[in-house]
């Protein structure tokens, strides 16, 4: 709409980071008991998603 291409890396990173933020809010409100056993896979998945999309976008740019 704005004429600029959509940046998938920013989009995926933003969604993943906002998702982490939602987990933190739920923990702060005691609606969820966040533990390291749950956080570690969530963080790994976030980092993996960002790296994967970054790698795919780079290979597309080439």
């Amino acid at each position: 709409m704005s004429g600029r291409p959509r940046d998938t890396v920013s989009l995926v990173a933003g969604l993943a980071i906002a998702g982490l933020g939602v987990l933190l809010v739920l923990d702060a409100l005691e609606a969820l008991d966040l533990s390291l056993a749950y956080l570690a896979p969530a963080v790994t998945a976030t980092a993996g998603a960002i790296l994967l999309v970054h790698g795919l976008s780079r290979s597309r740019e080439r």
Partner: protein
Amino acid sequence: MNDTTETQQLPPGPRRLTRSRNRIIGGVGGGLGRYFNIDPIIFRIGLVALTFVGGTGIGIYIAALLFVPAEGSDKPAVGVRFFRGDRGVLRRVGLILAVLVGTLMLAIGSAWAAGTGSDAVVAGLVIAVGLALVAAAFRGGARWLILPALAVALPAGVVAAADVDLHGGVGERSYRPQTVAEVQDSYRVGVGHLEVDLRDVPFKAGDHEIELGAGIGAVDLIVPEGVCVATKARLGAGYVGALDRETDGVDVDWTNQPAAAPRVPRLVVDGDVGLGALLISDRPVRHDDDRRAVSGTNAACRTETAAR
């Protein structure tokens, strides 16, 4: 034809070590392989193996990245240009250092805020930055925001998940009460080392409750002989050693509640450590060697229930 003949007759120049274009990371293994005319995989395996020797392989690799020029480049290596005072390189190194320091400060600030009761604020900030990234994605992107966003989100996440409470200040705390009246109900340190030595306290029969806490660090409790010790410990991640028993791991919730023998005092310890160790011993705890840090038998207890 003539050209080819002339080229073949040129004396071979000195062999030059460069980082190869045939690279996995920085072309160091490939460059060494070409220089010594050996399969690069030998150097790659060697560097990986050396990484397990105190990180030597990583040090060598970083040094090679900095001081060995890239193949086909007529410029000296980055490290050489840095020491020659090349302004472009100095500027780039300065920028990288500034980003690293900024990221570290953000991470520490985020962890501190989350550990001192502002966890909901930090969580809101993480969501806001995430949504800003989503919005920016449709306007060309803002990838530079990813690093600061992660620097805020990850430490706050670890602090929240490990239930790290950073109240209690930073540093070394040491207490050695002499009487039962001097023993406080609760001792804690935010980040650091807390030692409570109760060996001089003449406990009388009955239960004596004590709470110990640390956000990040080690808590040592030294107990007098002839006292039965019951322990309840919660750790986000770390180690609990209570006299003759121990456990470790993440999300540790450990209980050992033996009953005291008749007319024997019982110390009921409630320990809460975010990241670190809770150590209960009948002797000062040694933190500087690989031997088991705590000692004691808890023989003053009548029956011991199984630790969970």
